[in-house]
């Protein structure tokens, strides 16, 4: 555990992502804890034909779909919760550009867990007896579909349930609150599927709001749900979840959530949005782009006290720059 895995956002996207990859993202939550700035960087790099395993849509997948980079998505929830429908994704699906294969918020993380366990299939009662089972966007002519979630009989009771394929993405980008340079990470707030995702993906990139000293991991090892052994790269991603929220650090930016989603409704709007919010060089530039006023506003979060026990271990920007240069 003595090799730094800290690289820049651009390096991470260059090195680990590619057209046509099977990608996964986490938190994967519409309103919180997803690696949105990683998606922005993928869009900047022009990544396309991406196949995504997603617990829920977020502004990240919404943006990638809006620019036409999303070929296919398996997902539990494709909206933006109280912020409404995800216009970029909706447009891509309705036009036939993106294939959307529906599951649910419970079955997606269990399929990831099954991938982590390297099981051939996983049996569940979820998603059976309904159109997640009968309708397959991958195989639309076959309705009711019998191959997407085939029936399997319990050898003990004779009961029938559904058999699901496990999920094993090529690459996952996972938002975490804090990570050290070796890849140990602490999440504040719900994990959703991030724990399972970190175990089922072939490559794992952490997008951390804060880079911290390993001392915090040794003080709180039970909080380190993602240890260095499963991590390939660590990226410093301040306000990386913006405009959604990161528990303990910032609230969702209501105005920008609505604005961004409104812009993604059309191709023209998407281009205009990218002109305004897709033109920056590095994370420091990115933070400047968000702007102090906005950052101050979203940082006034009622959850800020959750960070108190960890503040002493947080690396400053200067320290992080030095860590990146020292490589």
């Amino acid at each position, binding site marked *: 555990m003595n090799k730094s895995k800290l690289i820049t956002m651009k390096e991470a996207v260059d090195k680990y992502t590619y057209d046509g990859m099977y990608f996964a993202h986490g938190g994967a939550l519409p309103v919180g804890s997803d690696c949105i700035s990683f998606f922005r960087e993928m869009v900047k790099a022009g990544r396309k034909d991406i196949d995504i395993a997603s617990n829920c849509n977020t502004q990240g997948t919404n943006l990638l779909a809006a620019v036409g980079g999303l070929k296919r998505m398996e997902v539990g929830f494709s909206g933006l919760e109280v912020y409404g429908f995800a216009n970029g994704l909706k447009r891509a699906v309705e036009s036939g550009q993106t294939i959307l294969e529906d599951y649910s918020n419970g079955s997606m993380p269990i399929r990831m867990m099954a991938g982590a366990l390297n099981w051939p299939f996983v049996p569940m009662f979820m998603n059976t007896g309904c159109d997640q089972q009968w309708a397959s966007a991958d195989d639309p002519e076959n309705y009711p579909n019998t191959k997407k979630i085939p029936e399997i009989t319990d050898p003990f009771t004779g009961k029938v349930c559904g058999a699901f394929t496990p999920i094993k993405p090529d690459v996952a980008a996972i938002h975490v609150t804090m990570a050290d340079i070796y890849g140990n990470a602490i999440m504040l707030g*719900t994990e959703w599927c991030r724990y399972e995702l970190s175990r089922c993906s072939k490559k794992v990139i952490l997008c951390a709001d804060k880079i911290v000293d390993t001392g915090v991991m040794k003080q709180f090892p039970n909080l380190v749900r993602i240890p260095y052994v499963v991590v390939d790269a660590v990226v410093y991603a301040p306000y990386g979840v913006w405009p959604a929220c990161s528990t303990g650090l910032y609230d969702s930016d209501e105005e920008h959530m609505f604005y961004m989603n409104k812009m993604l409704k059309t191709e023209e709007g998407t281009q205009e949005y990218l002109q305004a919010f897709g033109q920056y060089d590095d994370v420091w530039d990115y933070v400047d782009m968000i702007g102090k006023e906005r950052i101050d506003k979203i940082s006034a979060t009622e959850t800020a006290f959750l960070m108190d026990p960890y503040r002493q271990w947080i690396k400053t920007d200067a320290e992080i720059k030095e860590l990146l240069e020292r490589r």
Partner: protein
Amino acid sequence: MEYTRQEMMAIATGREFKDGELAIFGVGLSMLAGFFAQRNHAPNLMAFTEGGVYGSTPIGGLPWGIEDNRISANAVSFTGAIDALGFLVASGRVDNAVIGAAEVDKFGNVNTTGIWAPGTEPWRVGKYTLPRVRLNGSGGANEIAVGAKKYLLMVTHEKKRFSEKVAYISSPGYLDGGNAREKYGFPGGGPSAMITTLGILRPDPVTKEFILTGYYPFASIEEIKENTGWDLKVAPDVQVIPEPTAQELENLRAVDVTGSLRKK
């Protein structure tokens, strides 16, 4: 007393929660109804969200999502989705829950996935064509539908939302009615009521077809039948549902601090 149809619906939903129940709330209306119940008459309601946020109450207004800081600010436990939706919901442990729906049918099946041009529904054409309008998919509602001991459907009462048969089943109710759920081994009991903006429908114990059992003081049986897409049966003992008490309204509005339900 002044109150909106949305407020009546939220209070009627809240009344279905009993003290001590284990309950999962979604976002928006469903969460308001649940936290209203906790504040009003069910102080020991054990609420959690799909992502595994336990023991919290919203701060600063209606949360924008189930993982929003507004619902995370005073939690006692954060776990994950498999815990909440797998161990507690799909497993059959949850006592009560709420599902919102874009479209329901007479057997309580829910569509939150898409709108198809009439006549092009997948089950009708034997093919999964693209929806004309893509909606949000099931989220965690499928786990609730499959696993909750009972659950409530909250729906705006409009004819286009109350169909003979939904275009797409995102969350299974009683499927084709009767004992149809048994075939799938679902641990949960199915939907116990549709709470609408006009009244309450409950399933016939045998056929599982939803019938009108109550209507709000401002609504009528006729209005409800007109706004229902199937030939709605009316329970012999159909009742007028009591309007919100002053205390109920006060408690609901204390939860709905931003007044999202007061918009008419």
